[in-house]
């Protein structure tokens, strides 16, 4: 009897945690970005959440010093896919707020919550900006 109750509690806990992580995922990817139309990022979501900064840092060194630009982990790739637009079709800074809805954008949401300062965009552009070729 005790065993059955324990099992039931365990199952309930699993279902609850799955529901929470599903809700989380919806909140972190911004509606209207390319990423929102895709099933997953370049790696499973859980891995991306935990390791994205390692991916980006590794990519940064091989890109700057060896010129390799075809890997999945480029910061401009993150921006291109996760950036959203406002109602006028203008890109919203990925590390900022949507002034219309006060919704925190993709990077800002988690980084502000976790209190981890984000330095990428003091040099890199936070919206796609194309010039020349």
């Amino acid at each position, binding site marked *: 009897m005790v065993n059955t109750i324990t099992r039931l509690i365990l199952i309930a806990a699993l279902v609850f945690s799955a529901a929470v992580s599903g809700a989380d995922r919806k909140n972190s990817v911004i509606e209207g970005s390319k990423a929102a139309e895709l099933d997953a990022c*370049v790696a499973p979501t859980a891995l991306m959440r935990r390791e994205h900064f390692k991916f980006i840092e590794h990519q940064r060194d091989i890109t700057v010093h060896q*010129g390799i630009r075809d890997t999945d982990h480029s910061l401009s790739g993150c921006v291109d896919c996760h950036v959203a637009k406002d109602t006028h079709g203008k890109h919203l800074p990925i590390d900022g707020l949507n002034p219309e809805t006060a919704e925190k954008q993709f990077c800002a949401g988690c980084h502000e919550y976790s209190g981890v300062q984000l330095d990428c965009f003091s040099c890199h552009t936070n919206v796609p900006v*194309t010039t020349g070729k």
Partner: protein
Amino acid sequence: MSDNFDQNRRDFVSVASKAAAATLIAPGVLLQSVAHAKPRSEPVSDENRYGLLIDTTKCADGCSDCVTGCEKENGLDMLLKPKGASDESWERQRPRWIRTVKVKDRLSGHVSSLPLMCQHCEHPPCVDVCPTGASFRRADGIVMVDRHTCIGCRYCMMACPYKARSFIHENVQLRPTVAPRGKGCVESCNLCVHRRDNDVAGTACQDACQHGAILFGDLNDPNSEISQALKERNHTQLRADLKLNTGVRYRGI
């Protein structure tokens, strides 16, 4: 499974970027090349050495098309004069990858006007003095700053005999995806490294020059146009006495 997914995702992104290229084209912005760009997958090697040949006899006096072209492509024209700065100090300190310079032969009085950018030395003094290894020479001869490790000490600016480097003094509001920049780092011409790595020909300065004075190419490829031109006619290095073996060569001075 994940490979399949990845392929689908790439297809999607590729289609989306082509669609974007087709819809966003504005005058002077050549977005269609993005669709053809093939990013580099192998590390750069010393089989190539990139350089420029500048024929100053073709340079028109007062022309600065190469400077404008460079600034447009590399986002230098997006930089704003800091509040309270005088026009004079801004003109003196604003970041530039190419400067137009006049040199006069003292004996004959002959004046040449030429664009001066990073000379992409084989033995770059800026790399010698950099305390963090941020200033480096890529295997293909491009001298660059890794701004992730640049601490903004500006030793390289002091060491460069060509005054080719600029410093970013203020926070930057707007910059292009291909040329990140931020306060406290040094930068200079990188021979349009985003084009090198995405298989796009030429440089912004070469494209902008209406007089055909700038030729970009691979100095290590004996069949390249630049190698043939260098072989055919005499050329000079600026400050050849320093024995830096520059990647940028000049004619007519």
